[in-house]
């Protein structure tokens, strides 16, 4: 007997995201008040990948709100709580994650085609790229913000990823000597730093002394992949930095392939109620039951060995494999069934685990996971920047527009001076 195909409840997801768009996020989100730009970006990007058009008035509002978060010395602040106006404006603090989400969000709501060349109008490219360089430490890692003239925050590869992405979104490749030319980050040291993160079991972490983690693996590999990405994504990607930044590729592939496991829906559900000891581990299937035809129904993913399944690791693990050009497929159909039948929520969105309420983070990364699996009804997805390929194209145009404007401004300034001199 074949089971019915699981259904992607697109309309419910749209409803979920529209609700997130229209109403207040519940108070537990206060703990992520400093990353409101992330929630805003997820909301608009989710609607975008679900083919929901934006209202022009709303787009203008998004632009105003986002640009208001820009710091005069480059970068974007995470939320209005970190922004000062007037004379105190310099006292706010731009944050790397916020800057990444601001740039993606401005592109998400930008117009298609040439009209989108202005999408980054108002973004202080020069200051932001200089701020980005200041955020890099001697060991190659990046801080999340500046404090007393120093980069601060952890050294993990989330920051490497965000830095590499911001660099790709803004830097471009202006001609040597052009007014838009900006000095680059230290490429060698960022690669070295990431390379030092491979652990004894082949996975990646902030440092090889830590436990391997699929989330950090994604960040490390995506950071490397974006360092090499050509200015036009459609031109294909070089793998040089990825190869140089991962010391043992085969081992890493094994670590990533191991993130998927047979998810025993019924047993997990029962254990969820009983709260037994060892609830931190996923329930292992009996090996001799695996050859029954439908035993591979659900393919859950964890981020670390033996941990329980979690929606977002479907994205982190599959995405990393995709960027590594792994040459094999993981269990796509069980992964899809897991997402759609286990954590896809009745009211739309995805929850972290079965039975939990949906939240924006898992709702977005659930969609991202499905996008990688080629779900129809979701736009084609950029595995590196975690947005639609369309948005990536808009980023490219916006960057070109920004660079062109910088060059023109410099030229007209020069011309002005010429007349002054005459």
């Amino acid at each position, binding site marked *: 007997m074949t089971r019915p195909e699981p259904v992607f409840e697109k309309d419910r997801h749209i409803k979920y995201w529209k609700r997130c768009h229209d109403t207040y*996020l519940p108070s537990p989100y206060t703990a992520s*008040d400093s990353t409101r730009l992330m929630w805003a970006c997820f909301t608009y990007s989710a609607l975008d990948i679900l083919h929901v058009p934006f209202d022009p008035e709303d787009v203008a509002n998004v632009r105003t*709100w986002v640009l208001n978060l820009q710091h005069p010395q480059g970068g974007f602040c995470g939320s209005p709580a970190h922004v000062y106006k007037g004379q105190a404006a310099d006292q706010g603090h731009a944050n790397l994650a916020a800057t990444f989400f601001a740039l993606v969000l401005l592109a998400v709501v930008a117009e298609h085609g040439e009209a989108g060349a202005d999408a980054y109008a108002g973004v202080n490219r020069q200051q932001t790229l200089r701020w980005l360089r200041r955020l890099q430490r001697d060991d190659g890692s990046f801080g999340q913000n500046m404090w007393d003239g120093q980069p601060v925050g952890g050294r993990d590869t989330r920051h490497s990823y965000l830095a590499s992405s911001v660099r790709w979104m803004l830097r471009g490749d202006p001609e040597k000597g052009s007014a838009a030319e900006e000095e680059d980050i230290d490429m060698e040291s960022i690669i070295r730093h990431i390379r030092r993160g491979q652990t004894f079991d082949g996975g990646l972490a902030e440092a090889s002394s830590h436990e391997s983690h699929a989330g950090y693996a994604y960040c490390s590999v995506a950071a490397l992949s974006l360092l090499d990405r050509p200015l036009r994504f459609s031109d294909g990607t070089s793998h040089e930095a990825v190869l140089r930044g991962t010391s043992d590729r085969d081992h890493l592939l094994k670590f990533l392939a191991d993130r998927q496991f047979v998810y025993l829906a019924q047993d997990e559900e029962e254990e969820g109620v009983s709260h037994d000891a060892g609830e931190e581990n996923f329930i292992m299937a009996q090996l001799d039951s695996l050859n029954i035809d439908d035993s591979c129904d659900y393919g859950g993913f964890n981020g670390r060995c033996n941990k329980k399944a979690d929606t977002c690791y479907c994205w982190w693990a599959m995405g990393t494999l995709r960027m590594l050009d792994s040459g094999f497929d993981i269990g796509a159909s069980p992964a899809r069934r897991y997402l759609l039948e286990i954590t896809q929520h009745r009211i739309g969105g995805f929850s972290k685990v079965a039975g939990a309420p949906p939240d924006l983070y898992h709702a977005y990364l659930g969609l991202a996971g499905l996008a990688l699996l080629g779900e129809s009804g979701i736009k084609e997805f950029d595995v590196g920047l975690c947005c639609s390929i369309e948005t990536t194209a808009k980023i490219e145009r916006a960057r070109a527009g920004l660079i062109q404007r910088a060059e023109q401004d410099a030229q007209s300034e020069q011309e002005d001076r010429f007349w002054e001199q005459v």
Partner: protein
Amino acid sequence: MPPKKVPQKTGKLDPVWAKPEDLKKPETVGERTQQRINLSTPYHGKDLNDLTADELKIYSHTNLIKPISEGKISLSVKAEREFWKVVNKEKLPIRHVRDNYDWGKDKNGKDIASYTIEELNQRKVKQARYRALSLFSRQFVHLRDQAKRQGAELAETQIEDERKRRREMAALKKDLYGELTAKLVQDPVYDDIIPIPMEEPENALARIAYPDFYAEAISYLRAVMVAEEYTPRCLRITEHVISMNPAHYTVWLYRFKIIQVLDLPIPDEIEWLNEVALNNLKNYQIWHHRQLLLDYYYPKIADDEDAVKKLAKSEIDFVNQILAEDTKNYHVWSYRQDIVAKLGIWTVAELGSTQNMIEDDVRNNSAWSHRFYLVFSDPSQSTKDASPTEHDPKVPESIIERELKYTRDKILLSPQNQSSWNYLRGVLRKAGRGMSTEEGFASQFAECLGEEGEKVTSSHALEMLADASVETGDAEKATLCFTRLAKTWDPIREGYWQYRISQLKEQ
């Protein structure tokens, strides 16, 4: 004979139009009001045709004197005397209670008219108390300003009294009207801070239903941060903000700076942080803050061996306390790895405490990872900065053997537990030994491969057999193992196993 009951003289005579229910003791405020309306407006609401001539007279006189008794018409002195004479004689009511009087509702939406008289009295006492307190509070501000002008400050007791007063006022306000008073304005030490609210336009993105007074706390934090003030009161503001939003990315840095500027004892801060960490298990900033504190504190005590040992012990104790509640907390384990290196905790006790966690849950991969780090990065028995996946000749053979035995024992306990298999592979790499050296051990979990009666109790053992065969160049056996994994023993990774087979062909 008992004495005859004499009706008590009340000093006022009940008007003739009073109905019995108007004279009994009222239960509720509303009832009392109704009685007063009834007594002050004779025969109101009655059909005039039903009234007797006397009643009609009283009715019309009551209405006629209204404009005069209310002062709307003024009379000559003589006429006024006449007027009052008649009023007195007929006992007409000269004041009237509005018959649509609304007592309003209390904070719970309960009509105050339904209060008992006693309840209303209590409420009035509270209102009076509130008014009195506000007067004192205003006086406090006045006195403080005066003192300040003279370059003096008020006594701490006066400030404490004011703090209590404001707390009581806040409580009364909440009790009476259900209105909440913001936290920081209740403390006079913050009076001179001019809060800088965050700008939040109506159509802002990703709006959050903030808890009460989060916006207040943030606006005070913004003000003191911009003023670059580093004082104890600012420390309390940071604590207040952290209690609502521990992931705020600059509040921790600011707090750290206050500690530096005021040169506060780091152990006190760590103790405070312990509480916060226990309440926010999944938070990352807390552990980053702890790391900053340690980086700052350690050089001060680095020369004192006992002090370092004491610190190492208290840190590990706390880490263990957290891990007892959350056995795989990633931030905590990462922190543990960092302090092992920093404070030199390459001890038997540390290995033992990690081992206990593996004994409790043999699938705790965090504990296994920590063990690997402890064993193979211990500077006394390993090469500095050696890659974790490479052969390290400096690791003593006895250690390798101990680790292999330990791991094999744990595999026998739970053959399908991948953590211990990964560990085994890791040990072999460190030892510079091939997977094939464990072929004998792994074989017991995979019998009669490819034959009738095939029995596999660990897919990881089968994978190790495959890798051993790859090593020894036995492509046929490797293919068999991979195929059996793909088809039967680990079909969810079929794509990966097929890929491994295709790799064999390339070689």
